[in-house]
């Protein structure tokens, strides 16, 4: 973790961010901000975080030069930050560890969290098991159905997974349910939010805990003698991207490219892309940012093949950095993500999570447009094990069906 004196943050990013919550939630947020700043200035807390990073998460995660792919496309040198090799399978664990340690310092005994793909739920459940904290994960019924392996793991770690049946039964509804829980439980409970969004201080906090991804990548590139021309990451709420980009936010280079879920088309309800004019400024779930809204401000339906990108809002700092042009945004469709996933599996022996494969798809496109002297780095925020029920159905439906039928018979 960076050793600079941590300064109090401003709670807003340009016109975005803020702490738009009912008074009932003010005390826990105010308490959290104070505890976070104190922890960041406490060398003992940082040392504890760093030690869990090495002995438990498995940091640093490798930076892979994707030589076969670079050669095949004949463009830029493509590097892949293998963040999915972190214990529990995704970048989510960095933030879960940071916040769980903080919660413990604050004397909280219970952790609640929302999860979409289940990666954040798995990370939270795992670190709670390790630190001896009670853990309750809210997860939409739709996501429970499509990310069953993660539900199984969360329960194995001893967490309670509470299905959420309200609204669209996906990630945003799980956030609502966690907020409802927290409004009466905050005396002993910490809400361990999983992305760089929500009311302040969450976006600042999550970025800080995820910045380890960017810092490592920067050092690894330097060691490899490469200067990045572009960094590419998928963007759901924005935690892996803001952490990956964090060392470069104040400079003009490299290009920073966020990739949103293009889903299966650009009609309402068919995608989850909020940038490039698709989202409207609004206030939802305690923060101001760009959201997919109708004219009355009602939140609209979203779709993505990847549960982790299937969310109508984007973290406020990303919305701001997009509006001032520091971060460019593009999208990848469901199909493009699946194609990228197949390509990297075959060329590099690496299976991307479906979320990360959106970044992979955009990185492939960009690399093809650049000369071999250029360097493009993509963050593989997660590995694809959890997605097997989706990818197998999409890629090899017949043999997968036969396998499942056999499984049912042997049960």
């Amino acid at each position, binding site marked *: 973790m960076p050793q600079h004196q941590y300064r109090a943050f401003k709670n807003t990013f340009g016109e975005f961010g*803020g*702490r*738009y*919550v*009912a*008074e*009932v939630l*003010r*005390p826990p947020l105010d308490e959290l901000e104070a505890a976070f700043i104190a922890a960041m200035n406490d060398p003992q807390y940082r040392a504890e975080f760093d030690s869990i990073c090495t002995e438990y998460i498995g940091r640093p995660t490798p930076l892979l030069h994707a030589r076969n792919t670079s050669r095949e496309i004949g463009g830029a040198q493509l590097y892949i930050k293998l963040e999915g090799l972190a214990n529990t399978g995704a970048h989510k664990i960095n933030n879960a560890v940071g916040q769980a340690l903080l919660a413990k310092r604050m004397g909280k005994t219970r952790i609640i969290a929302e999860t979409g793909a289940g990666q954040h739920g798995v990370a939270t459940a795992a670190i709670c098991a390790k630190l001896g904290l009670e853990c309750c994960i809210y997860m939409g019924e739709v996501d429970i159905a499509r990310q069953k392996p993660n539900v199984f793991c969360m329960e194995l770690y001893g967490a309670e997974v509470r299905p959420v049946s*309200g*609204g669209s039964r996906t990630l*945003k*509804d799980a*956030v*609502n349910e966690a*907020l*409802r829980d927290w*409004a*009466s439980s*905050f005396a002993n409970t910490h809400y361990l939010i999983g992305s760089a969004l929500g009311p302040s201080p969450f976006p600042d906090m999550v970025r800080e805990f995820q910045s380890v991804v960017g810092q490592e990548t920067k050092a690894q590139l330097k060691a490899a003698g490469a200067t990045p021309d572009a960094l590419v990451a998928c963007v759901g709420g924005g935690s892996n991207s803001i952490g990956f980009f964090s060392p470069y936010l104040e400079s003009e280079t490299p290009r920073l490219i966020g990739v949103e879920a293009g889903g299966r088309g650009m009609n309402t309800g068919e995608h989850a892309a909020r940038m490039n004019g698709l989202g*409207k*400024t*609004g*206030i*939802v*779930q*305690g923060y*101001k940012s760009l959201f997919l*809204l109708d*004219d*009355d*401000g*009602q*939140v609209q339906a979203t779709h993505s093949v990847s549960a982790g990108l299937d969310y109508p809002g984007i973290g406020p700092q990303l919305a701001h950095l997009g509006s001032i042009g520091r971060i460019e945004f593009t999208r990848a469709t469901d199909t493009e993500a699946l194609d990228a996933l197949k390509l990297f599996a075959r060329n590099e022996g690496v299976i991307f999570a479906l979320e990360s494969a959106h970044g992979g798809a955009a990185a492939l496109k960009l690399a093809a447009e650049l000369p071999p002297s250029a360097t493009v780095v993509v963050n593989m925020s997660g590995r694809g094990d959890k997605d097997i029920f989706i990818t197998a159905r999409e890629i090899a439906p017949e043999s997968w069906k036969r396998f499942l039928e056999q499984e049912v018979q042997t049960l």
Partner: protein
Amino acid sequence: MSTTAIMAHMIPYFPDRELSYAAAHGLIDSKVDYLEVQFPFSDPSADGPTIEDACGRALASGFSTARGFEFVHTLVDRGAPPVFIMTYAGIAYASGVKEFCDLAKQSGAAGLIVPDLPYDYDEGLYEAGIAQGLAVVPVVAPSTTPERLAEVLRGRPEYVYAALRVGITGAATELGQDNLEFLDRVGASGAKVLAGFGIRSRDQVRMLSEHVHAVVVGSAFVKAISAAAEAAGPDEPAAAAEAVYSAVETLVSALRPD
């Protein structure tokens, strides 16, 4: 004489347009003292399952912000008691907070309650509301610190909504000495205290009567309306409207302490 005022909460277009008008008429005719009209939001993260479901149904029945103001206007024309529009920040912000205040004023509303636009993140709500002569009602909770409460009250609001416990709407509330002391602290400022969250019985109303200006009853009305509509079924709209009308009347008289 303890004539604690009752503020009845309802949701336009829940369970549908006609039945929500029937409910409102029942509330007006049974002489509740205030109406709290909640403009539904797709993501009501401060509401429990009863109001969350009702908001979802209202949106599915065609609620829009414009129709919400039309609803309020119609009730005011029919002689409604003071109407307070309650909603979430996202809805007020989408119209533009100032525009939302203008429209609220034009509809005849007396005030606005937007819990997630607190005074220090209000998007200009307090200024615009006051300029329009609307009462902007801050919402405080027992967890609100004395320092923060002082800040909330510094703007000398005419009304303050005091949640009787932490948490969300819907769940039962055990009233104890703590609640009453909290209400007295809020009321000491001279603001008229509207107290709610989990109120569903005459005993609770009676217990609060010395400590508040009005008692707010929300989920209990939503449940009564929903039960009446369901019992009547979808085939006889006129009968359903009558059932909803009398269900709210029955609940109002069950709550009145006399």
